[in-house]
């Protein structure tokens, strides 16, 4: 056995607290260690070459690298020794940075600990055997969850590469929140005008299969081979027959909340959300439908010229295989009402959210683009915008910044002036966050060209008086409290994760944070991957962001997906469990505890049933190893003997 030990200095990251030469010296004194040296930056080219040199010149058969966390460079060094001609797994990486130099300050203690850790690593690598990874074929089909701008973009990019995509959307139309916007900053492009071509393309693309009113029921499997149960909900409308004429909606007697219009105005129980919906198909909401509540009615079925209404329609569940999943479930506006009773808590009709205001501004909205006070329909002249409602506010458990509030307020202030030339807008802000391209200039325009008055301060209270709303705020710039008698108040409410995001995340086995925004694998370097291989993120579901960022992230996720599936197969880790079939007693406790369904029964020639690990499914967690009573399951790379050797070394 010929072991080589390489101790990294990592500049001063390690060497600052650990005497690396002492560690190398001590390593050389260990049994079977023929070579030990310190390297300034092991991961660099010269560092790696030094390893290859030593391996080749001294005929090393095993390598221990004492450096940073394996999460950083384990893959790097495996490749290095592979290049040197060794089996890539005949090495052990010992963490003397995150586990040692970064958490201690006394050099002597830290060095002693580093030596102990190296000793442990040497003990383990002594018992290592060569391992060989395998490949597993992948399903070359992709699932995109969420039909907003990010989901559409990802679907189009992936479909353009030739891969078939299933785009699933839980609402009756794709387009998401972007379809509800009137104009977009900073160009004031009409939102629908730039989005609908994409929406139509998504529907018509030969590689995209669009499913609306659809949710994900269950997800099984693993990267490259996900098995997904998809539920297409019953809408009582036969999609293929519906022509989108909207007569059912016109004649329906049952009122229902208008979700697309954020509650401004009312809709019907059977409806199409907006005239440019894709697909242009009606959907019935049973919870608001008289027929389903009271048992009386049937008007829509009667008047439908295409005979597309079917009250007996039921949910359909299908199971499909996908190689990768892109999650683009987007956001909703934070519901401010309970946390902000000082703004009326939703009781004042003339205090609206930014999205409700956006619908009022929209020419295709419930007020045909006429900005009106909800209370009396009059045109407001004094409009107040309040920033950061539900953002930057620890007292309501929301310290985050919504990223887009400053921009969309400026936009709405500009649009207000365009709609109502003799209006005066006031914007209460704390800071202005306008970091994108052209954003700062845009916010300046709101003040310079469109006369919006910006007051720096939060609003403490809004109350009704004489048909108006008194807004009590502060202008820290002039130094004191200010009050405004407003006709209409628009609250810039923050972003919340889409309803049910956490539940979906649990189905997919990915992490999420306290706001149910889905967690990326690394905040800097892996913004579109998740902790589960094969599942990617795009858009506001990951964190509040604007449209260009959502689109960029969607294309990034698409690139990852295309890369993943491009070769038709993926490599699996060899550090999987293995059963000693000769000694297995067939109790199947291992199968009982396996979370990945990676253990099956195998019948031997003598009729005995033993356990067998499915390599491609096994994730190497080792629970079967622990559960096995006669200890016949072992984890390659982490065998019992290796672990015991490590422990014995430490106890010495």
């Amino acid at each position, binding site marked *: 056995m010929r072991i080589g030990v390489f101790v990294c200095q990592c500049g001063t990251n390690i060497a600052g607290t650990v005497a690396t030469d002492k560690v190398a010296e001590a390593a050389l004194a260990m049994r079977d260690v023929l070579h030990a040296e310190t390297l300034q930056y092991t991961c660099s080219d010269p560092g790696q070459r030094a390893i290859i040199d030593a391996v080749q010149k001294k005929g090393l058969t095993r390598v221990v690298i004492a450096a940073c966390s394996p999460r950083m460079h384990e893959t790097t060094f495996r490749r290095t020794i592979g290049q040197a001609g060794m089996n890539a797994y005949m090495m052990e990486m010992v963490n003397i940075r995150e586990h040692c130099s970064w958490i201690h300050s006394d050099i002597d203690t830290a060095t002693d600990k580093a030596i102990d850790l190296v000793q442990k690593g040497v003990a383990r690598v002594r018992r290592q055997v060569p391992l060989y990874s395998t490949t597993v074929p992948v399903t070359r089909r992709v699932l995109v969850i969420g039909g907003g701008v990010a989901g559409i973009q990802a679907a189009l990019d992936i479909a353009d590469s030739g891969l078939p995509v299933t785009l699933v959307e839980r609402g009756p139309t794709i387009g998401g929140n972007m379809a509800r916007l009137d104009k977009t900053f900073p160009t004031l492009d009409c939102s629908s005008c730039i989005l609908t071509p994409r929406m139509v393309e998504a529907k018509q693309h030969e590689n995209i299969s669009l499913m609306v009113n659809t949710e994900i029921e269950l997800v099984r499997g693993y990267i490259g081979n996900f098995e997904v149960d998809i539920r297409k909900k019953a809408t009582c409308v036969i999609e293929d027959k519906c022509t989108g004429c909207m007569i059912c909606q016109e004649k329906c007697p049952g009122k229902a909340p208008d979700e697309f219009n954020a509650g401004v105005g009312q809709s019907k129980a059977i409806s199409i959300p907006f005239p440019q919906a894709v697909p242009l198909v009606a959907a019935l909401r049973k919870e608001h439908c008289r027929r389903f509540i009271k048992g009386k009615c049937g008007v829509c079925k009667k008047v439908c010229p295409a005979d597309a209404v079917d009250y007996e329609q039921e949910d359909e569940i299908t199971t499909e295989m996908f190689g990768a999943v892109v999650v683009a479930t987007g956001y909703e506006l934070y519901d401010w009402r309970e946390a902000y009773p000082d703004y009326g808590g939703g009781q004042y009709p003339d205090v609206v*959210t930014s999205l409700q205001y956006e619908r009022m501004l929209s020419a295709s909205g419930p007020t045909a683009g006429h900005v009106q006070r909800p209370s009396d*329909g009059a045109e407001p002249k004094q409009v107040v915008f309040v920033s950061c409602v539900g953002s930057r506010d620890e007292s309501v458990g929301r310290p985050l910044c919504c990223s887009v509030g400053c921009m969309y307020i400026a936009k709405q202030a500009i649009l207000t002036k365009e709609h109502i030339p003799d209006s005066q807008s006031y914007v209460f802000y704390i800071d202005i966050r306008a970091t994108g391209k052209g954003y700062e200039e845009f916010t300046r325009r709101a003040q310079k060209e469109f006369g919006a008055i910006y007051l720096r301060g939060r609003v403490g209270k809004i109350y009704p008086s004489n048909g108006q709303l008194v807004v009590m705020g502060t202008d820290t710039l002039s130094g004191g409290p200010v009050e405004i008698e407003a006709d209409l108040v628009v609250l810039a409410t923050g972003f919340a994760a889409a309803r049910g995001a956490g539940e979906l995340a649990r189905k997919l086995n990915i992490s999420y944070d306290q706001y149910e925004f889905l967690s990326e694998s690394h905040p800097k370097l892996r913004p579109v991957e998740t902790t589960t291989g094969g599942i990617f993120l795009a858009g506001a579901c990951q964190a509040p962001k604007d449209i260009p960022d959502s689109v960029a992230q969607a294309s990034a996720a698409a690139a990852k997906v295309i890369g993943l599936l491009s070769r038709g197969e993926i490599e699996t880790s060899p550090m999987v469990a293995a059963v000693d079939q000769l000694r297995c007693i067939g109790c199947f406790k291992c199968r009982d505890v396996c979370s990945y369904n990676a253990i099956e029964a195998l019948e031997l020639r003598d009729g005995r049933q033993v356990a067998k690990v499915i390599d491609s499914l096994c994730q190497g967690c080792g629970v079967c190893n622990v559960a096995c009573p006669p200890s016949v399951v072992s984890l390659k790379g982490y065998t019992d003997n290796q672990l015991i050797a490590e422990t014995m070394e430490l106890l010495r």
Partner: protein
Amino acid sequence: MNNRSRKDSAAIKAPASAKPGRNAYSYFPGCSLTGSAGEYDASFRLTSEALGIRLDEISDWNCCGASPAPHHWSGNLGVLLPARNLHIASGEHEAMVAPCAGCYNRLKNAQHELTGSEELREQAARVLQEPVRYEIEILNLVELFAREVSPEALAERAQGRLAGLNLATYYGCLLTRPAKIMNFDNHRNPVSMKPLLRATGAQSDHFPFKSECCGSYMGLAKKEIVLRASRRVIEVAAGLGFDAIVTACPLCHQNLDLRQGQINKAFGTSLDMPVLYYSQVLGLALGLGSDDLGIDAHAISARKLLAKIGKGDDGPAAATRSAPAATRPTPEATRSAPAANPASRRQVGCG
């Protein structure tokens, strides 16, 4: 009328369901209730009696310390003065009630400080010449009534007597702040008075100024603070069409009621908003006499309000009067605005 009447009122008998002895509390009236806010004390005693609550005034209590002087100049005075009261009360009952929001606030603060400081406990022990007992449960008036009578039980007895009134609940500052120590209701949106008020048959719409300050003790020191602050509270209430402001603090009452005339004079307004104590309102709902409850001791007359509920301003209403049980629909049910454009109907909510 005699503010300090403690005599049993023959017409009012505690219901059979009340268990005397179980519903007994140490009663800390404080300097205001035994002084210029005598009607608060009287109405509290009367209403408690009608609900079967026994109140035992704490023997030889002293000023609670809730004034500007003690806890600013000599920090410990603000703890030692109330500590003595806590100590006496702890020896008498398990729970005490302080209807004055100022006293309630000071007592709870003192309890909090005593819990956290051995030094203070030692000081208190030196004063009392024995280890201080301070862990008694401290309740305010709203809490006490909420605990002792359910809205259903009150509704049954009230028989919708106060139907037709819209009452603005006014909590002021000291009942709920600082939130961490008072631990009572929601400091940004207090609602604890509502269930019982609604049970009386009255309506109690959202009052946006319900926890804004009335000006506190500045009446004698810098009057304009009180006049301005109280003016806004009353004006907003008047503007929203309330019939009266209901309060649970004698200082708030004094600022809003006694000084309403001064407000009118200073600002040229013509406010005429009756201010009633929570105990008075509940007492009216139970059929007690408005004079017995001390409503005639207020500066602003409640005559119009009493007329609205069919009571003259003398004598108890007929106990057999059955008012319609139906009340005006609650705000949640009828939030539609008048004369609104159908296309821009009141929003249900966002997104």
